[in-house]
């Protein structure tokens, strides 16, 4: 059962990613990216991470994709690469490099001893619950949490400063 869900979700995720890459229209690309993010959120549920499932849907699917769509439509930049690429050898070299990268990673993974990829520890049905995450977030990782809030504030101020009227 788990395998069936995984295979279907993985196919949806890969189709979303490839369609994002090949789509000529930036709005379509953003929507295919949304499909991909949704599929990854389902995989988080399979991996016992219900809290991250919710965060993924709210932050990525809800906020980031809407921001992308908003900017694409605001700029009217749906179709901005009509002309041919001036560097002709770029595409074949990029694809060759990508295939090499996949081959390299798979080689490393296969060479890896099976022990290091085997499951460690017993399965806890409470693992990844919001309560457990909050416990770790507000005790062990309290300082990074505060720093993250500062980073968000900095981003907010940065955006406001960037869009000030130039005097």
């Amino acid at each position, binding site marked *: 059962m*788990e395998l069936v869900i995984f295979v279907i979700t993985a196919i949806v995720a890969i189709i979303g990613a490839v369609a*994002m890459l090949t789509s000529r229209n930036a709005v379509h690309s953003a929507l295919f990216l949304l499909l991909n993010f949704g599929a990854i959120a389902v995989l988080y549920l*399979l991996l016992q991470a219900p809290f991250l499932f919710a965060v993924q849907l709210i*932050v*990525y699917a809800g906020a980031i994709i809407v921001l992308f769509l908003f900017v694409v439509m605001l700029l009217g930049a749906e179709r901005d*690469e009509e002309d041919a690429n001036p560097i002709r050898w770029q595409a074949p070299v990029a694809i060759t490099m990508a295939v090499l990268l996949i081959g390299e990673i798979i080689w490393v993974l296969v060479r890896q001893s099976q022990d290091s990829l*085997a499951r460690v520890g017993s399965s806890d049905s409470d693992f*990844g619950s919001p309560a457990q995450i909050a416990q770790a977030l507000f005790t062990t990782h309290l300082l990074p949490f505060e720093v993250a809030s500062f980073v968000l504030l900095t981003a907010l101020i940065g955006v406001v400063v960037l869009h000030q009227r130039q005097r």
Partner: protein
Amino acid sequence: MLPTIFYIGLSVLLFVIGVCGVLLRRSTLMVFMSIELMLNSANLALVTFANQRQSIDAQIMVFFVITIAAAEVAVGLALLVMIFMRKQTTNIDTMTTLKG
């Protein structure tokens, strides 16, 4: 749970698709979306290892990555809008001001 390598394999595939997007597309918006895809595939690998090791720390790290990604998208898109207002294009080849 399925073998860890299934999830890692999917994560690798998505990452390489993101790399292809950065290398092949010339619209800055598309390059930015591909970077988001790569961040997501790395998150998937982290959640997989959190489940494999039954350790919550990797999930906390994914939470922070998502936070930073949100901040990065806000600033990055603001920069893109500013550049578009100056150059009237999102083509990445035109952004050569810092070229020596």
